[in-house]
């Protein structure tokens, strides 16, 4: 019974391996290929159900390498929900390979799940790297040059992380997060701790594509297929943010070693993301910068080093993962400038609604999930007296909202052009994708309006990290 909790991870990995083998060995008939996305979405949905049913059990596995607590439950449930909706909503005709398009997001999901339940530094790093490697494969399928760029930049981030984590281990004397927290209660902020934390934060900022560290992630997301872009912008960034939250949870006894870095990163990301989104002309670039701005809010919540701040960040991370991963998938192959979206509100109403809600949520518009998360973080910032950061965040959100209005205008106000003059095709309509778009709209709306139990669970998640 104890290992039932690990069943979701097992299901996700098994599904990924089977799909890869089926693609490689040609096991799939044309009919099976058509129904495969629905089957995989069902598998992740079942995994989500098991996680919610059995995930409340508190347990440790592999001698403390993995820990099942409320934090893990929240983050794993959020990422499984994200994967389910992404598989349902994506326009599979716009993807380069069905099997790799299904397997890589599954592996990335597995990576986030490992990071979420990591009990030590090794599992944290491994989870993040699995998610990032899956994203490199997805990008390289369409644009090998961008895949290589992402790999090299990711390598730098990985090196920074590894060196930082190794130094941290050397300074504290343990790789266990819980023990590290206990040791640091009697410790003082020293340069020997500040330097590795700086390296780790830099690596995570690159992984999360935070401004000004989006050296490869944003170009890669532009060149990738829709689901590949969602993987880079959403799941990998969510994995990095999960790692950051867990690390900050362990380092809260000595906030002086990370708070200043995080403040700077958060301020740059919130304002820079909003400003860049406003300046962007392409909807996918706009989504990328909106995502960067919102992940800046997640970082801002960590600055507070209070339970309420971390709970707000965790809640926002769930909203971010769903919106940032699914937004490019909902948009489909409508790439290029905003004229590609002209008339989408009339021609593809469900997908247009989904894209609007995703972008508005990423921008922090009321009453959607992103707004509730950003407000929870803002309340924590106010309680902890970070008014300068709060002001910058509000400014960044205002810029983001103005940016989204431009895209909504293109979808709903501009008349659809003649199909002959359209530079890129709108997403193909299928039963699954229409259902997925509607389900996505419902999730984004419900996550915000009925956020009380979700925020309550996020609060328990922050408590599980040892915060009071």
């Amino acid at each position, binding site marked *: 019974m104890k290992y039932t909790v690990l069943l979701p991870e097992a299901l996700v990995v098994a599904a990924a391996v089977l799909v890869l083998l089926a693609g490689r060995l040609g096991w799939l008939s044309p009919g099976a290929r058509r129904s495969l996305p629905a089957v995989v979405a069902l598998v992740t949905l079942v995994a989500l159900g098991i996680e919610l049913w059995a995930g409340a059990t508190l347990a440790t596995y592999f001698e403390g390498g993995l820990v099942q607590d409320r934090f893990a439950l929240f983050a794993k449930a959020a990422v499984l929900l994200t994967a389910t909706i992404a598989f349902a909503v994506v326009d599979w005709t716009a993807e380069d390979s069905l099997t790799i398009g299904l397997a890589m997001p599954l592996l990335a999901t597995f990576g986030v799940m490992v990071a979420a339940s990591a009990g030590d530094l090794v599992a944290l790093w491994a989870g993040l790297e699995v998610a990032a490697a899956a994203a490199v494969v997805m990008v390289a399928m369409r644009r090998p040059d961008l895949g290589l760029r992402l790999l090299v930049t990711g390598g730098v981030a990985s090196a920074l992380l590894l060196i930082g984590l190794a130094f941290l281990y050397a300074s504290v004397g343990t790789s266990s997060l819980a023990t590290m927290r206990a040791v640091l209660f009697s410790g003082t902020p020293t340069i020997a701790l500040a330097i590795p934390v700086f390296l780790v934060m830099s690596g995570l900022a690159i992984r999360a594509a935070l401004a000004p560290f989006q050296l490869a992630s944003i170009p890669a997301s532009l060149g990738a297929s829709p689901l590949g872009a969602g993987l880079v912008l959403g799941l990998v960034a969510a994995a990095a943010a999960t790692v950051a939250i867990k690390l900050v949870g362990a380092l809260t006894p000595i906030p002086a070693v990370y708070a200043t870095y995080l403040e700077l990163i958060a301020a740059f990301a919130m304002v820079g993301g909003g400003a860049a989104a406003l300046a962007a002309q392409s909807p996918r670039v706009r989504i990328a910068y909106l995502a960067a701005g919102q992940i800046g809010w997640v970082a801002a919540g960590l600055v507070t080093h209070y339970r309420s701040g971390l709970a707000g960040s965790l809640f926002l991370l769930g909203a971010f993962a769903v919106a940032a991963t699914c937004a490019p998938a909902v948009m489909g192959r409508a790439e290029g400038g905003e004229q590609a979206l002209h008339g989408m509100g009339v021609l593809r109403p469900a997908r247009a609604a989904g894209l609007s809600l995703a972008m508005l949520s990423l921008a922090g518009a009321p009453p959607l999930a992103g707004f509730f998360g950003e407000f929870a973080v803002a*309340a924590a910032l106010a309680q902890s007296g970070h008014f300068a950061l709060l002001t910058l965040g509000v400014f960044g959100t205002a810029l983001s909202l103005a940016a989204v209005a431009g895209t909504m205008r293109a979808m709903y106000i501009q008349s659809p052009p003649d199909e002959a003059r359209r530079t890129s095709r709108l997403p193909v309509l299928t039963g699954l994708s229409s259902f997925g778009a509607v389900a996505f709209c419902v999730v984004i709306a419900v996550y915000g309006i009925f956020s009380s139990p979700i925020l309550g669970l996020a609060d328990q998640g922050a408590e599980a990290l040892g915060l009071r």
Partner: protein
Amino acid sequence: MIWQAIFAASPTPTPTPTVPGAGIFSSSLLLSITVWVPIVVAIAIAIVPNPRGRYDTLMKQIAFFTNLGLMFVLGVAYNQFQSFLPTLQYEERVPWLPAIGAVYHLGVDGPGMTMLILSGAIGIVSVLASLGVRERVRSYFCLLLLAQASVNGAIVARDMFVLILFWGAAAVPLALLVLGWGGHRRHQAAWRLLGYWGLGTGALILGTLALYSAAGQGSFDMDVLLKATISPRVQLAVGILMIVAAATRLPLFPLHGWARDVYSEAPVGVTVIVAGSASRLGAYLLLRTLIAAEPAAAHLLAPVLAALAALTVGYGALVAMRHHDIRQASAYLALIPGGVTVLALAALQPLSIAGAVLSLFAGGLAAALIVSVCATLSERAQSRSLHVLAGLAPRMPILTWLMVIAGLAVLGVPLLATFTSNLLTFFGSFKTQPIGAFAVAAGLGLGAIALASLWRRVLFSAPNPDAPGVSDASLGETWYLGMLAGGLLWVGLFPGGPKLPGTDSPLFDQGLVNVLSAGISDIASPYVLPTPGPGQ
């Protein structure tokens, strides 16, 4: 009659006689209905299939009957409102987000009920004014209903989180309406609206969070947040942020940059909702968060508010005089009622606070009427230029009457609701803000000159033989403009409600001044001057 009304408006709560029909209908979700029904209908309109606009007429009918139904519900609420109770009525309180201390708390007192009635009336007028929309009908009415729901939500919110939610949400549908159905300069208008209102929302969020932090009770409920003991320094900072938020919405000089473009470029139905109810939320916010909650900051900032009021009224009148575009001139004239409302708030007197609440209602109707009548006139005359429009009175008798009433309402002449509100305002403000009151009065004088000049050129000068053909208001236009004018006349003639001769029993309307006075004693209690003793 008017003097009786003024007497009745002084905040001394007394039971009013039972109104026939009171108590026949009640619902604990009455306020939620006013907020969520338009949202549900908007979603329904958005998802119902409408191939090639086949059901456009049905969409319009749905929007109209939704507003009519809401107005019926609000009429019941108004009729059953206990005007002698200082406490909240129709209160709803459901725990929502305990992690951050937000509660789904709705409720209305006298000012809230007054604003709700205004919003309900404006909702019907805006739908009637939008019946001529031909393009993308579904999206238009969906956005209009969402905007109206946001305004209602901001009015009834008794939790600052809920207030921010609806306050911020109002900007998006209105900006999209301007962007999608506006005139030639619609892009500029929409971006300005978003920019200014976004700034205001940011200021409101920062002010609320500063208050939340200073109160230290982990709650956004107004009953907790606005009654906490806060240091004067924090009160001052919060007060300044609230003034910025209000000034962007009302608008007040110098944060009025969106008004000219939006009032002159938006379709008439949108103009009505922005000028009539959405923009009044600015003064309503000041009443709730500054005047009612932070008396120390209110005392310090009252001269600033009076100065802003005077600048707004004077600037609006002066610029209206110089404009050669009738819609832009009307946009500046529409700033004047907002300035008067803020002067009333700045006076910090029980009488003037009652005047401010009445001014929210009357000023909203007056501003909506002046911008909508000028928009209709320019459409019917096929020109906006004052060089072209001339001598229209003989050919447009209905619009001429309505334009004269609109102008008089802006100025606040007797028999109109704005007269009563202006009277209460000046009676209160000449005591405590004499310079500001004098400046606003002088601004109203300038406004009168601007209006007289406008009437003379457009209505009563020699006709322009080169002007395009004109026609008078259609039946539909007469209805919606007439409803605004009728509202102003009704409250102007019967501020205390119509009564049978020789009795105190109201016939079917207990009187707006009776309703609005509920709760004002509570708001005004920090500003009641001590009564001199017999030996003093």
